[in-house]
């Protein structure tokens, strides 16, 4: 190792040039910290205004409120609002892509479906509706089981699909 830089009689490894760089880097680091916190407040890492998203509409007879950003193994929710157009013969038959829903741990579905049918690459959840002209709200409590992008199609059986996509932080 090189002999430390001297200051008069003091043998100390002072390095002013490096020190100046360090101070600059420190400032940059503080700016990064502030940006990270602002991003977190806004919901860039889940659970804030820019994470909230809504998909679907009249054409699909469903609207889905979901979180664009979520974190690994932390809870997230799908709020599915079925319009009266989604009801046929007193039931709502909700079709969800298997790859999509299998990327989550499904903690709870409210109301409980009457049945879940396994199709070739989708599941069909059937819910009974008591007031067919009011539609219904269905809540899926999920916990992401995969890191990265999770995307999939949801829709009323035989109707148009809605594609939603989440980004899961590690």
């Amino acid at each position: 190792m090189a002999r430390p830089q001297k200051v008069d009689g003091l043998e100390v490894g002072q390095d002013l040039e490096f020190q100046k760089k360090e101070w600059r880097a420190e400032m940059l680091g503080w700016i990064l910290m502030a940006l990270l916190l602002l991003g977190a407040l806004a919901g860039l890492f889940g659970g804030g205004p820019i994470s909230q998203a809504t998909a679907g509409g009249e054409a699909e007879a469903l609207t889905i409120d979901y979180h664009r950003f979520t974190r690994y193994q932390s809870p997230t929710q799908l709020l599915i609002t079925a319009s009266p157009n989604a009801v046929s013969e007193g039931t709502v038959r909700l079709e969800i892509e298997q790859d999509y829903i299998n990327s989550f741990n499904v903690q709870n579905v409210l109301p409980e479906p009457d049945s879940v049918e396994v199709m070739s690459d989708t599941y069909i959840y059937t819910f009974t509706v008591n007031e067919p002209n009011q539609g219904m709200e269905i809540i899926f409590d999920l916990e992401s089981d995969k890191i990265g992008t999770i995307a999939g199609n949801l829709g009323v059986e035989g109707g148009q699909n809605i594609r939603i996509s989440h980004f899961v932080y590690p």
Partner: protein
Amino acid sequence: MDAILRSLAIYIFLLFIFRISGKRSLSQITTFDFVLLLIIGEATQQALLGNDFSLTNSFIVITTLLAADVGLSVLKQRFSSLDKVVDSVPLVIVEDGKLLKDRMERSRIDVSDILSKARELQGLERLDQIKYAVLERSGGITVIPKEQG
């Protein structure tokens, strides 16, 4: 594999965040700093272990953290530039009883910090009895008194 990646991510993140918060941030542990450290430990713990509370997992995590630490120290020994990046450099803040204000300000040190160290370490009474004061890499201040004439 998961546990190793987690531990390394945490190790690097902690290294980075403590480095940019400056040498002085936790160098003198006040009661509050101590509480802060405990909370940071608490926040780290879950992410470090995940849902796996087995002995094996904790062995892997501990081994990874220590291996990272040993590895880093070997690299620091070999590359002095890395040593500076990770551990910083000492800085003279008082020279012949004269305060180097600019450096003190940027390192967030004031005169009372230096005087308190001078009393504690050397039993000095006044600033003009100090020959050098150095902000060490660890964040502590060391004081060298003037020789009595």
